[in-house]
């Protein structure tokens, strides 16, 4: 069936709503994004399916949903009884399934793994009242992890079934597309996007409306739009989640962008490591075509536009727009000089507009609610929200969407709920491997493009890694550099040669073999690489080095001057010893030492031969009495 009128859309919306919020059936939806699956969500789903069949529960609908963001609490299961709120259960295992189904059958609503409930939900493109009840369970926005968040991009994530286009339409999906095709000119759309102030979420923060205008201005029979879904930063997975949880919002955004810029073909360039997202996109594209929302004569108009999915070449640098284009054309993925910009000469030499997954996700909202509405979110210069992946040494890890301008402190200490093991948080690193490390005393910095740049970091794609006292900052800088070196394409000298030498110097520092002159050389080189590299990879790869030098110079100094690593991470600067008066002589360490470095009689204190020990740390981990100590003492110079 092809949709051509608002009435058609409303009919499908009604159908979708019956599935999403059934009034005569129980609906169980299991978090089925990669994060949920990786901790057993698929087993939970399978068990539900089997047990529902065994119990012959006909009046029960089992489906998949995306990820609501609280990845640390997965697998999450949503239970929706007619008329009642959605109850979200956390850390569900296959063993819980029987109990859950029994309670549903008995209509007793005390699920022992209940985590929070959802009574009302703002899908932004619509609002839905799901139901009431469950006095004892906290509302979703009463728990710390969600309270400061603002869901615009993640408006449907973890609620709707991403594989069902009807449910997307039920929460207001494709209304924006309808609106632009039936009542707006391309110029009016671009004006609205400009008014919203939306900036590219792929890292550089370029104003989206302006970019669209450039592409529209170009005269050409063929134009392209591309969705950049290459997401290669280690630890970042917001784009993956957005695609897995709500593919239609991205597709709708792309169709609107194509209509505005005059593009005839769309390409989703997606990381090959994201098979589930590829699968969901392919299904979503097919479903949209069946409804006449994509393909020829979209919504009965004269506008034709199609989308294909292309899998990436597996290199981080292929996320850079010109390298991405080269890669789609079958060339090696090396960036080229700009100008000309892709808007002028992009894919196959044709005008091309390229945006990030999350940028596209915001588009339907801007059309639905208006540019003015959007521009009031966030800050004046960085309007809107941003999804961050919060990982590392905090209690709550997951995806958080907050208004831009929210402070680091609020994200790390409030949403993240402080450090694990009550360890002191020392720094965060934002923006992926090429972001800077921001020390704790600057945690009042608001997160937006300008403020992050001012402290030497970047927004990047939105990764936040939290580090505590167990992290050595020199080692951290080296670790991130390792990544950039592996990903450097090798075209320009600064990045290709420079990063390698920076790494070698850092390596010497962590081994206690460097001098203060080496630190100066490191700093000079880092600056040159930053200024003179050809593409964004080299231009930003120095950030971890420059910021740790700036904010954690003391640690560098300790490594060089006293050959000491505060965090006791750098292997060459630590020593394992057994405290004589604490050792019970249980012999476990001696048995486990792979190189037989530990000697001693049973019941008597043991001793580690320093010249034999390879510092594997096994004895430290296995000693039940904490008698093995990891030391890093000052050598040469005062303590």
């Amino acid at each position, binding site marked *: 069936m092809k949709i051509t009128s608002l009435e058609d859309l409303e009919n499908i919306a009604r159908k979708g709503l019956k599935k999403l919020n059934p009034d005569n059936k129980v609906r169980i939806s299991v978090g089925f994004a990669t994060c949920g699956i990786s901790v057993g969500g698929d087993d939970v789903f399978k068990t539900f399916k089997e047990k529902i069949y065994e119990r012959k529960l006909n009046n029960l609908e089992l489906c998949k949903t995306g990820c609501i963001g609280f990845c640390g609490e997965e697998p999450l299961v949503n239970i929706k009884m007619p008329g009642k709120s959605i109850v979200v259960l956390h850390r569900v295992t296959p063993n819980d399934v029987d109990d859950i189904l029994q309670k549903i059958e008995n209509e007793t609503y005390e699920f022992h793994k209940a985590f929070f409930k959802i009574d009302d939900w703002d899908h932004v493109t619509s609002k839905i009242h799901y139901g009431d009840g469950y006095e004892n369970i906290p509302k979703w926005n009463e728990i710390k992890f969600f309270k400061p968040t603002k869901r615009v991009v993640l408006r449907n994530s973890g609620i709707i079934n991403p594989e069902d286009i009807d449910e997307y339409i039920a929460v207001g999906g494709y209304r924006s597309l309808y609106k632009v095709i039936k009542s707006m000119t391309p110029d009016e759309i671009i004006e609205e996007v400009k008014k919203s102030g939306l900036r590219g979420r792929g890292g550089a923060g370029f104003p989206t409306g302006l970019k669209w205008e450039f592409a529209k201005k170009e005269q050409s029979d063929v134009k392209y739009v591309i969705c950049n879904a290459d997401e290669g930063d280690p630890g970042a997975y917001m784009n993956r989640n957005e695609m897995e949880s709500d593919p239609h919002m991205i597709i709708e955004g792309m169709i609107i962008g194509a209509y505005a810029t005059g593009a005839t073909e769309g390409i989703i360039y997606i990381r090959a490591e994201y098979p589930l997202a590829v699968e969901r996109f392919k299904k979503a594209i097919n479903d949209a075509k069946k409804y006449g929302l994509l393909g020829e004569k979209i919504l009965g108009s004269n506008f034709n536009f199609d989308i294909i999915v292309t899998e990436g070449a597996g*290199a981080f640098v292929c996320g850079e727009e010109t390298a991405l284009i080269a890669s789609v054309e079958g060339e*090696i993925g090396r960036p*080229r*000089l700009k*100008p000309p910009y892709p808007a002028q000469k992009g894919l196959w030499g044709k005008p091309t507009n390229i945006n990030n997954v999350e940028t596209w996700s915001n588009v339907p909202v801007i059309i639905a609610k208006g540019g003015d509405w959007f521009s009031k979110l966030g800050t004046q210069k960085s309007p809107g929200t941003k999804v961050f992946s919060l990982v590392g040494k905090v209690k709550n890890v997951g995806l958080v969407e907050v208004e831009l301008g929210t402070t680091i402190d609020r994200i790390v200490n409030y949403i993240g709920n402080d450090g694990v093991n009550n360890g002191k948080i020392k720094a965060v690193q934002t923006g992926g491997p090429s972001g800077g490390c921001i020390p704790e005393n600057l945690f009042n910095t608001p997160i937006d493009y300008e403020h992050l740049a001012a402290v030497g970091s970047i927004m990047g794609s939105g990764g936040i890694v939290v580090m505590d006292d167990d992290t050595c900052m020199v080692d951290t800088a080296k670790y991130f550099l390792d990544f950039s*070196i*592996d*990903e*450097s*394409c*090798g*075209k*320009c*000298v*600064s990045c*290709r*040669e*420079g*990063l*390698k*030498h920076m790494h*070698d110097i850092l390596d010497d520092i962590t081994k206690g073999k460097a001098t203060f002159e080496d630190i100066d*050389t490191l700093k*000079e*080189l880092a600056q*040159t690489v930053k*200024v*003179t*590299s*050809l593409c964004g990879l080299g231009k930003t790869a120095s950030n971890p080095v420059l910021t740790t030098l700036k904010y954690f110079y003391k640690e560098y100094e300790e490594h060089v001057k006293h050959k000491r690593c505060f965090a006791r991470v750098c292997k060459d600067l630590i020593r394992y010893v057994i405290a004589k008066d604490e050792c019970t002589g249980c012999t476990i360490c001696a048995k486990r030492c792979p190189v037989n470095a530990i000697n001693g009689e049973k019941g008597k204190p043991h001793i580690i031969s320093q010249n034999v020990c390879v510092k594997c740390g096994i004895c430290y981990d296995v000693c039940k009495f904490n008698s093995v100590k990891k030391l890093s003492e000052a050598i040469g110079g005062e303590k």
Partner: protein
Amino acid sequence: MTEYVNIYINGRKYEAKNGEMLLSVARRNGIYVPSLCYEEALGAYGSCRMCIVEVIAGEQKGITTSCSLACTKDLKVETDTQEIIKHRKILIELYLAQAPNSEKIRELANKYGVKNTRFKRKIEKKDPLDNKCILCGLCVRTCNELIGRGVINFINRGYKTKVNTPYFESSEICMGCKACLEVCPTDAITITDKGDTRILSSWSNTTVKMEKCIGCGKFSVPEPIRKKMDSKFFYEDEVLKNLCPDCRKKLITKKVTLISEKKVEQYVK
């Protein structure tokens, strides 16, 4: 129609074509901007980073490469600020470490007063490019884009990048034209002629057969080039076909002189 604009380099006014690359304008006017990867026939590539300049007024303010900087009205650049020199010196140090055997790089270093490199030198025992290659890409681009052969390409990525024939296997398609050697800014490529064979030792010992000149008897024209020329050019005098460039020149000069001598004779009469 070409549009001309005024631009300013180091405070002095110059005329440039609108959209022309700044490095070309500088070269034309004798302003020295170091560059290792730019050939006008190939266009900007941006791998060597030596040609950086600082844009004082214009669209891309800040430090940028002049080989890719399009001239627009009232563009103002400085080519030798303290900061630029500082960066160039470090780049030279990187080159000294990367291509320790290159005389050309050492000359460049001397020009900038760089005596030594603080970075570890990369020396490989059996480097076909004699530890002189700086991966500027000119040979690859020339062979691919100008000669249309694609004999050589980049191998690996990042700091492991190399330039050579695919899988380091000798090439079947090389014409032995030596264009790669001509463009190399560091004299890294070795090509020698031995009897009737041209040996491209840098390119996995690729060999190309040479043809003998019927004039002087030297082996001078690679066979594949002769064949290609045969199919492309029409020779007025068949003899020219089998002569080396030197003998060809001689013959043509002779002919021309003969003709003019005849003309002179006629004139005198």
